């Protein structure tokens, strides 16, 4: 019990801090490292709430593929993080806004019963059955998202011949 709670707290801290760090560090390559760590921390959560399949998926897709993709993007663009970041025309308003949303969300979170709750996972087989059976439509749509994304992205990044 305590162990789980402790794990939760550690993971929560890690996830939050890595996410922040990823957005705030000056070197883009470091950012990618923090992001990877963030994804790992999230997958830790999934293990914690008895969703090991998702944990693995998270590790594979995010910590693996997405991170590498981002790294690739960084290398191609070869741009350092700009000297001063938070300087849009709106001044400090964005920070205030995101804080405001955060506060409201946190307030709402307090209405959630504060006691511990039982969270249980289920066999991976059940998940896959559901995914390909009941929720097949979602996967189908995911495929339909990926198809134009693939075609379009390739077209977009391809150099013109002439």
């Amino acid at each position, binding site marked *: 019990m305590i162990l789980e709670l402790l794990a939760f707290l550690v993971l929560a801290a890690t996830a939050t801090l890595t996410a922040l760090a990823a957005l705030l560090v000056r070197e883009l390559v470091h950012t990618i490292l923090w992001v990877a760590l963030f994804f790992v921390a999230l997958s830790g959560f999934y293990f914690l709430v008895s969703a090991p399949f998702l944990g693995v998926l998270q590790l594979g897709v995010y910590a693996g593929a997405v991170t590498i993709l981002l790294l690739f993007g960084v290398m191609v663009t070869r741009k350092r993080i700009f000297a001063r970041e938070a300087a849009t025309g709106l001044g400090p*308003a*964005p920070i205030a806004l995101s804080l405001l*949303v955060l506060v*409201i969300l946190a*307030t709402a979170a307090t209405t959630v019963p504060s006691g511990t709750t039982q969270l249980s996972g289920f066999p991976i087989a059940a998940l896959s059955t559901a995914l390909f059976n009941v929720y097949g439509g979602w996967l189908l749509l995911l495929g339909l998202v990926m198809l134009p994304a693939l075609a379009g992205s390739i077209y977009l990044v391809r150099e013109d011949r002439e």
Partner: protein
Amino acid sequence: MTGPLSVLFGWAFLVPLAPTLAFVVIGLFGRRMQRLEWGGWVAVGGALFAMVLGVLIAVGEMLTPGSYTDRSFQWFTLAGSGTGAFPNGFSLVMGTLVDPLSAVMLIVVTVVGFLVMLFSIDYMHRDSGLPRYYAELSLFLASMLGLVLADNLLQFFLFWELVGVCSYFLIGFYYQRPAAASAAKEAFLVTRIGDVLFLLGIFIYFQQFATAGPALGWAAAGFPFVYHSAPFLAGIPISNPTLFTIAGLLILGGAAGKSAQFPLDVWLPDAMEGPTTVSALIHAATMVAAGVYLLAITSVFIGFSATDQLAIVAIGGFTTFWAATMALVNRDIKRVIAYSTVSQLGYMVLAVGAGFTMVGLYHLFTHAFFKALLFLAAGAVIHAIETQDLFKMGGLRKTMRVTSIGFLIGGLSLAGIPPLAGFFSKDDVLGGVYLAAQSHPLYWPFFALAFLTVFMTAYYIFRAWFLAFSGDQPRDSTLPQAHEPPWTMRLPILVLSALAVVAGLLAFVPQFGGLFAAGARFPPTPGVPPSYSATDLLLSGVSVGLGAGGILTAYTLWGNGRVFTLDARSAAQPIRRLLLERYYVKAGVDWFGLHAVYGLARLADFFDQYVIDGTVHGFERLFAEFSLRLRRIQSGVVLDYAAYVVAGLAVFLLFFFVIVPAIPALGGG
């Protein structure tokens, strides 16, 4: 009641129709006729027909005393809905009514009309635009006859307006002269003020009679009440005497406008910008008398109110004096006669107001002839020497004998020298007012003014005669050689001279006098001329003496080519100036028109453009400005756009978490 000529009464509508046809013919084919100079003769023909028929009808009326004949058709009708002010609806009619009053007027209008038309043939032959002149004159004649024969107040008003507009056009006949155009405008607008009051007066009568209609057994309310209702009047309960008083005052307003009574008198002297023939016909004999005629036909209602009568007496009496003073000093021959017209109209109004309706009409009758005579004679002078300035004239007696005699007869008649026409009628007026003042002490001052005016009248008209006709030769030697006018002009002068002599005496012919005695139509105010009692004879004597004194004064100052000049430092000089400037009324009216009314209008226009429309523009600018400012949020920076999204999110969440719980209607609270 039928008489020898009463079969003609039904055909009375032909009287105005003849000049109407002349108007249409000249209007349509005038330009083609101009070369052949037919236009004038068509008009003369129309007027001749009207005169013959009109006089015959009048004679017929004399032969069947006290009769009246009404022929009418419905103009438009309104079906009643069973409720409201006119439960049975009402119908408006047009028609002709022949009775003693209209008979008198028929004679005046047709005779003077015909003579003036005839006079015009040569008088106007040098002018361009003659078809227009004859068309307008014919239309005027038609309208005037329509007015005279009107059998109800609405029709009366309709033709009243038409004669007004004809007068407007005829005053402005020389429209290229700014003064003429301006005078025409002034005449129209000043009389329009009166017309508007008159119209309201009509409404009041109409409504009152419509209310009383069922009591009178009328199926539908209507306007034919002026004469028809008179016999019933005794049976009408006057439900609202104040309203009747107000109506009488409003009618007086209308009459004052048309008859140039104070304070609406300013237009008539200026109207002399028109051709002299027009002045003779319209602004002396006929149209200006329509106001008096109106008072006469409505006197039956006005008689209900002492206030109205006093108001009429006051207006008439004061105008008599007021206009005469201005005539004393004027240099313009036509304007002198014009002031005299205003003054004489004042006598008529005075008489009607004092309750002697038929006396007023009697004076109207005689005045029409001698005033037209004066104008035509003046016209002949102007035609001959092409000036209107008395101080340039002189000695015309020698070259224009007929004219000078005509003018003399007219002048004597105007001055009230017996046995000329003016004597009898003016005497009757004075006598009547004297009689009325016995029971109405407030009439005295106006009687005094009117009496005093007799002297002034004689003075100013003979001042004019002496200046123009006596002496050896014109004071201005550059004037063209004067000559006696052709027969078309001489004939009307001669005829009118004769009428000016005999018109007064005609009243002693029983049949003719009967017209004026037919006051039985007006029960509250018998209009019988005063009998010649001792007081009357004394009054007549004093009046004639005053007239003679006036003539003598004029001779002393102006006779035999003398010119009386006032010392520049004389105490009378400011008075003379005041009179010449017409008491500054004209200047005041002009100022009022140009600065007060037009100024206000300009102000309103400014307000309209810059405040009302400015507000509209303000809204436009407001939106534009708002749009331009709001557009700045579209900065092109995608991060800003994201911020809007998040801000919207924040607003929604705040709405759900702060506002919804706070407001019971939304499910919170």
